[in-house]
């Protein structure tokens, strides 16, 4: 059974159809890239899976669970973590605290425990150690104490990745992780994603425009245009697909 199944999902914003009967499935352990021209609905799909957008129809199933029956804050608890196309960090917290926020769903402790302080101390220490480990892995340990603002863009993107990893997810969703990165950084990022998948047994769903990276690291590519799927297969398959060539290079190709 596929880990994530998206079936016939439709989203409209007023008169605009953002997603039109989109459906595909991702197997556990694979790196799947979602590609397509701007406005194809890739980020919209991410936001449907995160429950930030309500689809008009269709279903989204993760590990057998109907995601559309859950509230947005419950998604993280099912084992899904994501990053954002435009960074969504918490500037009022330090880098390490931002990463610890990522672990919110897999930890417990309410207002009373928080106010009394004592019973959560050891857990808090373990959590901080976990976060430091993730930061260390991504080469971010030197900035752990720095507020999560005023750092280079590539660093901020890695902090978001660290926050997603702190959730110890089964499915990691990355929304344009390579955008704004230098050529070298993109190469490193590809290796990092593959390494993380291998080490943590992750499944990765990736929205990316950087074709070199997409073709280099993913086993599965889903191509979208105007809210619909136009191709689905291995990188080799989709890159030979006439519809994909048409969508990317225009009518004359």
């Amino acid at each position, binding site marked *: 059974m596929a880990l994530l199944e998206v079936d016939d999902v439709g989203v409209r914003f007023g008169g605009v159809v953002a997603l039109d009967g989109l459906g595909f499935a991702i197997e556990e352990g694979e790196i799947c890239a979602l590609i397509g021209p701007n406005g194809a609905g890739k980020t919209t799909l991410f936001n449907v899976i995160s429950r930030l957008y309500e689809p008009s129809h269709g279903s989204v199933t993760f590990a057998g669970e109907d995601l559309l029956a859950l509230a947005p804050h419950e998604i993280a608890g099912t084992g899904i973590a994501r990053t954002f196309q435009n960074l969504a960090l918490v500037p009022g917290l330090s*880098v390490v605290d931002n990463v610890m926020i990522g672990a919110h769903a897999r930890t417990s402790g309410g207002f009373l425990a*928080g106010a009394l302080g004592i019973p959560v101390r050891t857990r808090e220490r373990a959590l901080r150690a976990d976060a430091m480990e993730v930061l260390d892995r991504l080469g971010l340990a030197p900035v752990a104490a720095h507020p999560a603002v005023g750092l280079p863009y590539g660093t901020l993107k890695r902090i978001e990745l660290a926050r997603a990893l702190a959730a110890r997810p089964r499915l990691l969703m990355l929304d344009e992780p390579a955008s704004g990165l230098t050529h070298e950084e993109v190469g490193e990022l590809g290796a990092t994603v593959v390494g993380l998948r291998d080490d943590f047994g992750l499944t990765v769903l990736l929205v990316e425009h950087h074709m070199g990276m997409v073709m280099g690291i993913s086993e599965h590519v889903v191509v979208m245009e105007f809210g619909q799927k136009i191709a689905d297969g291995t990188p080799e398959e989709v890159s030979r697909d006439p519809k994909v060539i048409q969508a990317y290079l225009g009518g004359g190709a």
Partner: protein
Amino acid sequence: MSGAVSAAPGNRWRWALFALVVVVALVLPQSLAPEAVNRLSEVMWVAVAALGLALLTGFNGQISLGHGAFLGLGAYITMILTVDYNQSFVVAGLVALLAAFLLGVAVGLPALRITGVYQALVTLGLATLFPQLVIRLGDITGGSVGRQLLPREGYGDTALLEEVGRRRFLSQAGFRAPAWTGLADDQWRYYVFLVLAIVVFLLVRNLTRSRVGRGLVAIRDNETAAEVAGVSVDRYKVVTFGLSAAIAALGGWMFAVLNNQVSPTSFTIALSITLLVAAVLGGAASIVGPVLGAMVVVLLREVVPAESQRYSQVIFGIVLIVVMLVAPGGIVGIYRKVEAWARRRRSTGGPAPGTTPDQPKPTQPQEA
């Protein structure tokens, strides 16, 4: 960041300072006149209420221009239960906390749909409504005269005398120092307030540094990020509003205990603004800030000549504008900036900002 950091030198220094402040606070009333002791007690109820407001506004990013109403609710419940229902101050305080928590939740619920300026308006409405409601419910609250020695209309002579006597007795009884303490009433009140203020201070401090505290700040800075990380945004906001209201009501309990009388004029919008000024002036996103702010706000009135007292709201307004323009982080914000600047100077030419990789001792930016 409890625990992990208690060994860090900066933190040890903070605890030492905290201990010093507590010792000074313990010794102070021994050498002060009762009026001065009462003034410090006033600082403490303002500080407690401002801490509650800081939790809501500074840490969670919700706005309340109506915290004076929660404070008033606490004060009225305390007076009515102790005077009319012969309950102890402890019982009255617990009821006040619970009632304010529930009202806070009720006011916090619409805040899930409305934010920013609209939330400001709703809470402003609450602040305006409260004194009016108190006057309307005169049978219970004593109306516009408040809870004083005056009886209500419609009493026969005997009843009137009894009522006067009862009220007078209770007014004199009020919150008395137990004999075993050997303290004057004003000193006893002061020490009780000090204990309450320290407890509230530590609880809010722990909360803001816990998992929940991180969630609150995440909601303030980026609600979507908080939600995606699994923070139950709605529940956190509503519970925080309730807690904040309950803390303000504790301030109201202290108000009633200190003044031994309540009237609607004490809980107008002016009080809500004063609390906001105290929180913002000191630094609302900190725990030390509201305490400093409360000192400034109460002591400012000492400095301003009596004939200019009616301009105090004008002064607060100007102070608020200047603070927002010059130092949005308040007094604590200025301190943090200086501290960060000094750290940068020290580490010029050194490694990357913050700490070295092998020494992960992060300092939390919201720390004061």
